[in-house]
């Protein structure tokens, strides 16, 4: 049963691929929709392209989190307690973004909408950047150490030397911890990683809007996508080659890197031609390959230590027991095809392009201030 941890390493990668390829485009739309629209109606065109989908896309994140908790408790515990403030920032941004999307149209008032639009856009930019920083940290390695907790109740611990840890087989007393704090996560390499996700999502969002809209608006976002695709190609190329040469541990990561490179070139080519369906698929695969690159680059570790390789948390060390992973495998085998099935159906239901004319003239939501009287309302003497 020793292959199960490795299977689950792949499953976790697949869940993150699902999250970043899908939510990537609605982050992209979120970053762009206020600037690319010429009037309020166009903003609503842009928002309605992601309307039925963003919530389902976000569930990939929850699944990735839950699956990591179950299949790799040590990874879950070490990563999220270690990236404490970074994760807090991400959570706050995600919360505000959800409320901004859902509540924007609930009150018919220019200022109300403007405020939520601003909140949405700011959140989309920052969170797209932060995901890149987080993943670049996984590739680069973090300040991971092995600690011996001497008194859990008072949070006292001693750092175990790499030699002592290698000699020990007992993991009851020794656990991995990220001890560097928030600012240790920010390095030139990880910040550039942030720009990578940012630029990839921008392109992804622009291409997605081009695919889902019609008319003037579509022509405009198509041009924008053509320009953005060149930018994301260049930034990603620089970062990926840096990552491969400086941090990747083996030859295998060249393969997803090459696939990502080819797909990004194709995205750019097709975006120039205005073939948005092909461009979207190419960019989709490029993001998927980039995530695959990150996971192959850190293999066989789930958390690389930049302090000492002996401190790195390996797949096997992080893994849950066999029974948990067997149950989860069976569940995924049955449920994931069903989920993919109804998700594809939902994209098919909303496959029609949205034109400005499809948007009603009256903004949605309730009027601000005093309520207008109901039509049949008669005052009683």
């Amino acid at each position, binding site marked *: 049963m020793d292959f199960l941890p490795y299977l689950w390493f792949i499953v976790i990668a697949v869940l993150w691929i699902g999250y970043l390829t899908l939510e990537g485009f609605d982050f992209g739309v979120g970053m762009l929709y206020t600037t690319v629209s010429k009037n309020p109606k166009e903003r609503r065109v842009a928002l*309605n392209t992601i309307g039925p989908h963003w919530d389902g896309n976000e569930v990939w994140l929850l699944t990735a989190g*839950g*699956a990591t*908790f179950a299949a790799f408790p040590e990874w879950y515990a070490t990563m999220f307690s270690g990236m404490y403030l970074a994760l807090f920032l991400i959570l706050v941004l995600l919360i505000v973004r959800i409320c901004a999307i859902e509540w924007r149209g609930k009150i018919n008032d220019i200022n109300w909408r403007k405020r939520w639009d601003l909140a949405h856009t700011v959140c989309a930019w920052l969170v797209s950047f932060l995901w890149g920083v987080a993943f670049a940290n996984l590739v680069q390695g973090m300040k991971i150490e092995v600690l011996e907790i001497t008194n*859990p109740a008072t949070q006292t611990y001693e750092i175990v030397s790499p030699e002592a840890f290698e000699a020990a087989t007992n993991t009851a007393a020794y656990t991995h911890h990220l001890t560097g704090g928030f600012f240790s996560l920010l390095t030139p390499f990880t910040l550039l990683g942030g720009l990578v996700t940012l630029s990839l999502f921008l392109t992804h969002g622009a291409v997605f809007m081009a695919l889902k809209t019609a008319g003037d608006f579509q022509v405009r976002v198509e041009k924008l996508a053509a320009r953005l695709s060149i930018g994301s190609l260049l930034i990603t190329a620089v970062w990926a080659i840096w990552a491969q040469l400086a941090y990747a541990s083996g030859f295998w990561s060249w393969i997803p890197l090459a696939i990502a490179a080819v797909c990004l070139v194709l995205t750019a080519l097709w975006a120039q031609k205005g073939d948005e369906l092909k461009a979207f698929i190419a960019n989709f695969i490029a993001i998927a390959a980039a995530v695959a690159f990150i996971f192959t680059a850190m293999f066989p570790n789930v958390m690389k230590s930049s302090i000492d390789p002996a401190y790195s948390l390996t797949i096997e060390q992080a893994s*849950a027991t066999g029974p*948990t992973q067997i149950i989860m495998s069976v*569940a995924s085998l049955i*449920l994931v095809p069903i989920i993919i099935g109804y998700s594809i159906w939902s994209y098919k*239901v909303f496959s029609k392009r949205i034109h400005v004319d499809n948007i009603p003239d009256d903004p949605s939501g309730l009027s601000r201030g005093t309520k207008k009287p109901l039509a049949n309302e008669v005052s009683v003497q």
Partner: protein
Amino acid sequence: MEALDLARWQFGITTVYHFILVPLTIGLAPLVAIMQTKWLRSGEEKWMKLAEFFGKILIINFALGVATGIVQEFQFGMNWSEYSRFVGDIFGAPLAFEALMAFFLESTFLGLWVFGKGRMSAKLNTLCIWMVAIGVNISAYFILCANSFMQHPVGAVYNEETGRAELDGVGGFLEVLTNNTAIAATSHTITAAFLVAGTLVAGIGTWWMVRSTKKNIAGQPEMWRSAARFGFVTILISAAGVGLTGHFQGQLMYEQQPMKMASAEAQCHNEEGAPLSILAIGDFTNDCENVTRIIDVPWVTSFMATNHFTGPESEVAGVEDVQAFYQEKYADQFGEDYDYRPNLVVTYYSFRAMIGPIIFPVILALAGLWFTRKEKIWDSSGWAKYALFAIPMPFIASSFGWIFTEMGRQPWVVAPNPTGVEDVLLLTDYGVSQTTSPAMVLTTLIGFTVLYAILGVVWFLLVRRYTLEGIDLTTEKAPAPDDENQPLSFVY
């Protein structure tokens, strides 16, 4: 304060806040589904209008529920990483199941329901809201399986080599899913959720019935009367369910966590024919000898716990006796002086705050059914105000229900008990993240609290605003079958 205390406050605040929103979603989604089904089957326009109206409140609420739910999932890793290491093998699986089986279903079909009106047949659209309703209830079940493992650990073994709890083979997971604590907690929580949602529907229905009668708005009093009566019936059925399931859950709790129930009654010593305390005062600073019991109902606690009023079989445990038992049992592990008593004030009063408020919706439902019998319209302004006053009551009750359940389990995060796996246990002190500083936890505590407060105000104002707006019967907006160029029926 130490990181531990701050982390506990953070967990409490974010969880209670999240759980204000969740029961409404769990209960309201099926109620909206029923309304839309009534419209589909009878063709009566009023049910579609009501489904749309309560559907909007559902969406406003759902958004914040989802948003705050994300925090819940990652908080275990952030603040309680040692706990996560200890039980991840078992506890993580139901969370992953929840996402796979429920979250995808809810989110995808909510999108299809909201945006799909006019793009699919009315039947298919109704099926979508039913999928949402099923999803939220599956969600409740899995999260309660996870929580019930902390109350009553089953299906696990303690591995001395790794120092962790592990799943007891594949069958262990089945035990986690069929944990009697989980079954009791799920039925209790879901009936409570229906009570929350039913009271909202009944409260708004009653208030609008009176308002539209006074304003003489054509067609409205009849429509709101239907909504109100629908709510009244929901209240009565679910309140009976809450009582019944609460009773079963209580009996399990006496068996599994005697300390929790003893604290809820502020009962110091093992007693036969123990009375039920209605009210007690005094210095509760965790010394139950200082508590003065003011109103007692004889034998009732014993009967509730054991089905016996008197005699040796009616004996129920007391705080001090359980404390002495634990101190002896765990002397080697945690020292001889460890205090195993939960906070008495919180446990005692939250138990009463869980049960007491339920009387208000029940009164509303009984009065409402009487005054609206035989097609009568109810137009009493006093009752209209009372109906609004009743709305928050089940919210309060369910929040305190959680506070009681979780605080009563302290100082354990995984509580050992006679019928569970005895050596799978963890003190809350030992579950906290080791390398997060108090300053960091304080930062996020303040961050979440302030953010939640702001969003909570907006949530409340939106729900209030939509309630005040009511339903406009003059505009025709029935979902039309697929038409190529019609404007989208629902747009941001």
